[in-house]
């Protein structure tokens, strides 16, 4: 009892001493909402990291780790890359796919120095589309902050919009079993080239209105989108 009182006193003094600095650890409660009615998101990766680290950047080529995530939803590469850089990660908070209209809430505590927040998740169906937050500077003021997120294209795979593989470098879109029935089949393909190989804002899917055949295995009434596609809300204690 006496000990904990002393600790409290010490903590109070410590809190006062730290109050004037902006580098103390922060406890964040984060909610990501899938704003669409027809897209699924693969396991999310959220990371608080130093200002000179990142997951992706528009206008730059994707890393191999980003490509794994954007083409197949595999966040392990990005997660270990950031862990090796002493980042604070949250992986797969929804324990699987984040369905249309659904939200997932999780906590993340950043070490001092990990001043920037990034988040990625792959869009299904897509060849290499992902939702991204790129190096958002974590405010030092307590409060609730809302950020609308756009869809990016990793620039690593042609948007053929056909059933295929989630492995890096392999053509086509991954088809997780729960989504199998919502995809079309036997399309001829929208395009087999990807001339912009830099990360860029996704131009959206074309799709078609044929469950069997046509150009695309994407349904044009269900799987298109307009930005923003996700909302990230951060509450800083």
């Amino acid at each position: 009892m006496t000990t904990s009182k002393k600790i409290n006193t010490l903590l109070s003094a410590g809190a006062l001493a730290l109050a004037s600095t902006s580098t103390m650890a922060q406890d964040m409660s984060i909610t990501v909402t899938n704003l669409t009615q027809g897209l699924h998101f693969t396991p999310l990766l959220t990371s608080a990291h130093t200002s000179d680290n990142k997951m992706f950047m528009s206008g730059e080529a994707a890393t191999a780790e980003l490509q794994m995530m954007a083409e197949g939803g595999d966040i392990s590469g990005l997660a270990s890359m950031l862990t090796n850089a002493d980042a604070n990660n949250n992986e797969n908070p929804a324990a699987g796919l984040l369905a249309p209209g659904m939200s997932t809430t999780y906590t993340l505590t950043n070490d001092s120095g990990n001043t920037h927040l990034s988040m990625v998740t792959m869009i299904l169906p897509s060849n290499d589309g992902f939702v991204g937050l790129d190096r958002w500077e974590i405010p030092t003021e307590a409060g609730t902050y809302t950020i609308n997120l756009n869809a990016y294209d990793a620039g690593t795979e042609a948007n053929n919009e056909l059933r295929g593989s989630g492995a890096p470098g392999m053509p086509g879109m991954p088809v997780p079993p729960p989504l199998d029935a919502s995809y079309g089949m036997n399309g001829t393909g929208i395009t087999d080239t990807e001339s912009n190989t830099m990360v860029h804002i996704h131009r959206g899917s074309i799709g078609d209105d044929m469950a069997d055949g046509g150009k695309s295995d994407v349904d044009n009434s269900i799987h298109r989108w307009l930005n923003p596609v996700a909302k990230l809300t951060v509450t800083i204690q």
Partner: protein
Amino acid sequence: MFTFSLKKNTTIIIAATLLLTLSACGDSDDTAETPAPVPAPAPAPETPAEYTYAVTVTNLTYAQPLSPLGVILHAESKMWVTGEVSSVALEVLAEGGDNSDFIADSNALAAISSDGVILPGSAGMVEISTTDRNATYFTVATMLVNTNDAFSGLTGIDISEMTLDDSKSWNLNVYDSGTEANSELMGTIPGPVDGGTGFDAIRDDVDFVAYHSGVVSQDDGLSNSVLTQAHRFDNPAIKLTITRTK
């Protein structure tokens, strides 16, 4: 020291308020941020008996007339939430452009409809007044009528700190009520392109509200669509301004 930090905080609060106003206009950028509402200052000792707000909506689309605005003042609540089921009143508005049930909501402390349709490239304005000091939140909704069930608007916005002549603006995205499949079929679109059925109680879509994926149209691969390239839209679709005038 204490005085200094108090001043600093005040500056931060003002900066945050400015940021809130500015960032609301650029909502689609992923760097836009909306700080939490700052702590409310003590209410002014002399509050007027009547509060009046002018709500102006500019139609930013190419060929999507907007149904008459439904505007409501209420206590803290939201009239739709992303991921949740639409009320029947919102369904009636989103499928048919009829806001009568929507503005008759039992939580409404004041409600009004604007007079007519707001055509593309034009703006519509309506004033709403109340003497109820609990009417500190506002909601507005309007249908994009050449669609199955697209609507735009804002809900549950805190206006308690607006002083006389204060003005706030937003560029707003388009929602889908999730209550009617986006078939774009002849006979299902109430707007002038089709003159089809508006509200239908059958729910044949995902049955939750979220953002709209845009119309496809007969010119872009939906062969049975009654819509053409002219009816396509993007976010944002409307600009909304609220000004306290009394």
